[in-house]
């Protein structure tokens, strides 16, 4: 297999666009029957940053993600992506605009190989029509070959999953599956990557690998990251901006250190009580 030196990743480092927001959530409310999952949530994600959403279980993090990717229709408020209100845009079209996401409980296609799963990521950007597909001539063949080359040289190589490219996804370990899911999201040529608990259930080593990948995605690929994560160590280490949710409301947001020390955050996580002790516990998490 030819996977010769891909010394420089073809993506150029991102032009510094700090300060420009790529995604913003504006007064978002969502309710299921009488349950208010989200109430007037507002925050924005700057282009080229890693933004994390934290909060205890049931705080509404996943509901927030599902609203952003278009599965839930908010009862109030707006989601803006690339300066455009996307409230009325269906999930597949948001994906085509450059919004990629992974799922908390891995949503890979078990019956397919790793390679096919990653290729699926490019779906929205491919144009092969049915006749080209049936006869597999010219354009279809070229498209597939180019896609394969790009996936091999950029994504598989980058995420160090070349040894499993032809394995069936179902047979892989949890950590590897998470990595394949990230690979698939990257194949979508995203402008923003929504990661739902990227390191949940991973051991120390796998978590560190993932942290490295996320930072590389941000720095080398120039992709903005928005993630939901419980691992405080990871969040504090790699985030540029942290949003803390509780009971469907933003209780505070800001730089990691500010959020980490905020008394409301600590009491949200651990109930009210001895703040000093809890703060110490947080620090140990790092």
């Amino acid at each position: 297999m030819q996977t010769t030196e891909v010394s420089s990743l073809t993506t150029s480092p991102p032009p510094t666009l700090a300060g420009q927001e790529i995604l913003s959530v504006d007064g978002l409310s969502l309710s299921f029957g009488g349950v208010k999952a989200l109430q007037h949530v507002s925050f924005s994600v700057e282009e080229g940053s890693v933004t994390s959403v934290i909060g205890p279980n049931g705080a509404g993090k996943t509901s927030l993600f599902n609203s952003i990717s278009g599965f839930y229709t908010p009862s109030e408020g707006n989601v803006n992506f690339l300066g455009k209100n996307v409230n009325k845009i269906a999930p597949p079209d948001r994906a085509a605009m450059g919004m990629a996401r992974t799922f908390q409980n891995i949503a890979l296609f078990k019956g397919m190989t790793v390679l096919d799963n990653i290729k699926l990521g490019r779906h929205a950007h491919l144009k092969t029509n049915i006749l080209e597909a049936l006869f597999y001539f010219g354009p279809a063949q070229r498209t597939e070959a180019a896609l394969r080359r790009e996936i091999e040289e950029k994504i598989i190589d980058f995420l160090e999953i070349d040894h499993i490219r032809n394995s069936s996804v179902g047979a892989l370990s949890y950590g590897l599956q998470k990595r394949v899911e990230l690979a698939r999201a990257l194949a979508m040529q995203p402008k923003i990557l929504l990661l739902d608990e990227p390191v949940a259930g991973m051991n120390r080593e796998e978590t560190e690998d993932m942290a490295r990948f996320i930072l590389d995605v941000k720095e080398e690929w120039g992709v903005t990251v928005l993630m939901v994560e419980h691992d405080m160590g990871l969040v504090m280490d790699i985030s540029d901006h942290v949003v803390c949710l509780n009971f469907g409301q933003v209780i505070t947001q800001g730089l990691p250190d500010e959020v980490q020390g905020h008394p409301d955050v600590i009491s949200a996580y651990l109930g009210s009580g001895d703040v000093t002790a809890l703060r110490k516990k947080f620090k140990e998490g790092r």
Partner: protein
Amino acid sequence: MRIGTAKENYTADEALFDTNIQRGWMIALMIALFALPFMTGQYAIYLVCLVMINIVSTTGLNILTGFTGLVSLGQAAFMGVGAYTVAIMEINLGTPFLLNLLIAGSGAALVGIVVGLPSLRVKGLYLAIATIAASVILHFIFANWTSMTGGVSGLSMPPASLFGLELVQPDQVYWIIMPITVLMLFGAANLFRTRIGRAFIAIRDRDISAEVLGIRLLRFKLLSFAISSFYAGVAGGLWAYFFRVITPESFPLLMSIFFLAAIIVGGMGSILGGILGATFMTMVPEILKMMVGVLSPIWPDAVAVMSPVRVVVFGALIIFFLIFEPDGLAEIWRNIRRFFHLWPFKT
């Protein structure tokens, strides 16, 4: 032991048959298909034609049910649409058979799209039942639109002609059926090397996350219905050229169950599975006939129970494979291949 499969570029790795041995087998198979009519009798060719027609239709159903995960019990009715289209065009217009088959496929595809329309709102069982409803309604149209379909007595049509030669006997019609079957099988295999086939599988496995990847569910579900019914329509057209008498009873619900059984026995979501399943299921009655031949001296009633036994065997095969080998004959075949690839080492 299989060795030396190193490749020089990605295109080679993406090829349908990626080793020389595989390509060699393919060429041998093609030669065999071309030599067949000169080597066997009319009855064997008759069976081969029947198998091939069933392979086309089964492959179509496999695209819809095996690969996209949408159960359909309308495949026989879609075949009927194709068969009637061919017969009507051949009788009234006398257009060339290739055009007729193409229009038969397209007509069936259109009907398929209409039947698939509920697929965004309803899933699974409800959709399967919508396809049963479609079969019933189509059957009604076949039986009652007398001016077009000849009503209950059906239609008899002239044979296809190729360069002025009338194709009457099985070994003549074979030259239409065989190339089209081969072409359509390659088409199906190619489909799953591209974004369209991958989208189908994604819809089957988890349709919510398919949406996140930018796959428009309704469009691709309808596309799957269209392709599947196109295959059924062409198969029905071939069927019409083969038997040349079409009645509303030619395409009963039982036939749809036959195709469903074929993909289950052969292997859902595998092109090879469709081929194996259709072949196997078409040959079951033949095998039973042979057994009857052996048994009849001892048990004179054997001939009488032949047809019900066939029905029992169909059902029993469906149940057996679903319980014991859900991946079907294709999986058994893969295991055999794996064994030889690794031989003399044990897996």
